[in-house]
């Protein structure tokens, strides 16, 4: 448990720095007073509101107040919606997380068979083909993939709906769009990790004992090659969420990505701050969880 405690303690400075960065940005940007008041407001009106919001305090006092509010779960109220910012975010979080998890499943479903295949057929046409596809997959911008999928599977062959999140069919195109880049990254990794595992002693031993090749691959190679995949999920998670923001726009997905864009366009800083904080927290938790799974899966790594 010592390891877990240490990891949890390391999260705290990271989160503090993060809140400081976001707060400093908002402090520099901040002119919520002009946003909230009508254009014909007098200087006196402004002064009253500034004081009421505590914006006349020095930077460090404001930051401490902000931290205190945050610990109580108060991220402020959205000007736009007149609702608590955190509630707005949590309401839409499920849609974004579902999309991300579906994309992750797509990536796993594509990358593990392809990666294993490429490694087993190393330096053959199949291997080059798989590597080629994964390099191209990483180079395509996700919003373009989304638009091209809409072109082929919603316009030319109207199979899937273009926007919204009402039925299982709505999930198909957005999940593939978001999953492609991750699938490309993971395919390369699975290939490399299978190649490494194949060379290991225990696989050679299993082979020399006369075990069937399919058992060797299934039992030893497959399971062990999953270990680095777990790590990459943790490492790639920020990119996945970042991608979700863009993909949600393409498919009018009702998640926090669209909430964020609206908040940015209207300078709704309470919502922006709440979103950044929630995403960072999720990322850190995902990293911690994948790290623990990694240690459980690989007996060679000790907790301390």
């Amino acid at each position, binding site marked *: 448990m010592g390891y877990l405690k240490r990891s949890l303690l*390391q999260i705290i*400075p*990271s*989160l503090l*720095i*993060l809140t400081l*960065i*976001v707060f400093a*940005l*908002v402090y*520099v*940007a901040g002119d919520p007073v002009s946003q909230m008041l009508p254009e014909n407001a007098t200087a006196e009106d402004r002064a009253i509101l500034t004081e009421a919001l505590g914006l006349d305090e020095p930077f460090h006092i404001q930051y401490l107040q902000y931290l205190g509010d945050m610990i109580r779960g108060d991220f402020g109220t959205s000007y736009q919606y007149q609702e608590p910012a955190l509630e707005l975010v949590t309401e839409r979080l499920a849609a974004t997380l579902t999309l991300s998890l579906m994309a992750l499943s797509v990536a796993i479903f594509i990358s593990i068979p392809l990666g294993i295949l490429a490694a087993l057929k190393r330096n053959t046409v199949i291997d080059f083909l798989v590597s080629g596809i994964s*390099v*191209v997959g*990483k*180079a*395509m*911008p*996700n*919003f*373009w993939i989304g*638009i*091209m999928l*809409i*072109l082929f599977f919603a*316009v030319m062959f109207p199979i899937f709906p273009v926007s919204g999140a009402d039925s299982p069919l709505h999930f198909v195109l957005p999940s593939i769009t978001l999953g492609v880049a991750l699938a490309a990254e993971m395919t390369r990794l699975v290939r490399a990790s299978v190649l490494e595992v194949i060379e290991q002693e225990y696989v050679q031993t299993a082979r020399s004992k006369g075990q069937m090749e399919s058992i060797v691959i299934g039992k030893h190679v497959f399971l062990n090659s999953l270990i680095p995949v777990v790590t990459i999920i943790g490492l790639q998670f*920020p*990119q996945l*969420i*970042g*991608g979700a*923001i*863009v993909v949600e*726009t*393409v498919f009018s997905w009702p998640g926090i990505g669209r909430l*964020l*864009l609206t908040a*940015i366009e209207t*300078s709704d*800083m309470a919502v*922006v701050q709440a*979103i*950044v904080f929630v*995403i*960072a927290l999720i*990322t*850190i938790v995902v*990293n911690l969880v994948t790290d623990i799974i990694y240690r459980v899966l690989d007996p060679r790594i000790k907790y301390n």
Partner: protein
Amino acid sequence: MKHKISFSKQLKNIGSRILELSTPLGMIGLITVSIIVILAIIAPWVVPHDPFSMDATKRLTPPFWMDGGSSTYILGTDHVGRDLLSRLIYGSRVSLLVGLLSVLIAGIIGLFLGLLSGYFGGSWIDQSIMRVVDAMLAIPTLLLVLVAIVVFEPGLVTLILVIGLTSWAQYTRLVRGEVLSVKEREFVQSAKTLGASNTHIISKHILPNVLSSFIVVATIGIATAIMTESSLSFLGLGVQPPDITWGSMLNDGRNYIATSWWIATFPGLAITVTVLAITFLGDWLRDILDPKLKKGGDDDDE
């Protein structure tokens, strides 16, 4: 003194090794990137049409090989009748500019902090730098950039600064790791024993040895920055009209995808080809400059 090779000598070696080590993919990358760079520079003189001039009578003209296409507008026109090919060529200027300059900013910050953090490894300087790096890496770069865009007016300069200032953490982490291994080597230790100053050791002994892996990662970083720029421009938060970018062209084309597929298709292809070419170039540079990055081992014995 096998370890200490001057940078100019390294460059000379690289020159001869380019010929020796040319690979098909590396050459494709190098040539494609060169063509894109040259086109971007000479864009005003080579575009077939004025990329800004609108012509309502010519709007939504398809590419030349389709029904209704014309050989004057090879790749067709957009929703206000502007020539797509000319706009694509102009679009490369913004992408390359943002890519190069933002990586320059991120690289300088990342290199400086990485050298500091690695050289004073374990000290409070190292600890505090690495905590900031952890925090920066915990949030998606795109999200950081988006937040920063709220603060400053969207535009070319903002975009370069913001991408540069939010993407340095990965360079710091890389350089720190390299420095940690280089500083244990014999020639650094002996320089220390001889009483050389920290600045001297860092600039003369450590920097030259971490530079090659840094260049490789920075090259790939240009591709990432171009992706970020395109995403932001696609969302309408990047470079603003009338400046032309591939991302905003794609955004224009999105609304016409059901009738005029070419408007959104070609800018996306341009981004993909550019990113792919830079990736090939980067992979190849790694093979030439820094074989150990690929093998994952230490080349101390060479």
